């Protein structure tokens, strides 16, 4: 995974993407106990693109030029790690990227979405596997409930959150 992160950092340095942050299950696992997942979800922001339609083509072209052509499902295999690239969109995802946290992975700088934003995205996505992560987050002791409530309120997710946590 370290080498995959190095490739992502190279993409930022080359200007292909402006910023990236780990989200999804591997983002959650930064804060919670580890659990099974098979792909690395990476949210990406492109520089200077204010348009409505965002294309991941530059990312795939960059990877193709470096012989990262193997795919599995929606992921590109980068140094043994299947990476799924997810463009952000205005609203919750853009805000989550703004508050992404820089961490050190075995000497490699990288970025992970904040715990509260990861939870809010999970609530927004609303799949069964997202719901299963809620107790892991809460038991980790890493969640600022006031901050989470503020995010959930602003993105009209509080009702779903309550239905998830009060049943």
């Amino acid at each position, binding site marked *: *995974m370290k080498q995959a992160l190095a490739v992502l950092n190279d993409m930022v340095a080359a200007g292909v993407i402006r910023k990236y942050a780990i989200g999804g299950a591997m983002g959650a*696992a930064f804060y*919670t106990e*580890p659990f*099974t997942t098979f792909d690395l979800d990476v949210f990406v922001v492109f520089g200077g693109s204010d348009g409505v339609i965002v294309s991941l083509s530059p990312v795939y072209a960059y990877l193709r030029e470096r012989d990262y052509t193997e795919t599995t499902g929606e992921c590109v295999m980068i140094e043994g790690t299947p990476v799924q690239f997810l463009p952000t969109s205005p609203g919750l995802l853009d805000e989550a990227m703004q508050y992404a946290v820089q*961490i050190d992975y075995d000497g490699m700088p990288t970025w992970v979405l904040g715990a509260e934003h990861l939870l809010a995205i999970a609530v927004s996505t609303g799949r069964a596997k997202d719901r299963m992560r809620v107790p892991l987050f809460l*038991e980790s002791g*890493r969640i600022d409930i006031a901050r989470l409530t503020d995010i959930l309120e602003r993105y009209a997710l509080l009702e779903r959150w309550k239905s998830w946590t009060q049943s």
Partner: protein
Amino acid sequence: MDAIMSVETEYARGKAAHRRRLADLPYPEKVRIVVELQKIAAPILKARGVTAIPWCLTTPDGERNVRQD
């Protein structure tokens, strides 16, 4: 009855503490555990017809890390 409740409480407390300890592990260590979990889950998923390949974490410096099926 009190004794049973006490054992239950202690068990729940111990489990929560264990989970907290796991959550506090360094991220690279968590990733190593995730890969071990992948190795356990992959054959089970394969039996169900789902292709899931554990990640390759160890590669000598300077070498490309490619999938080993």
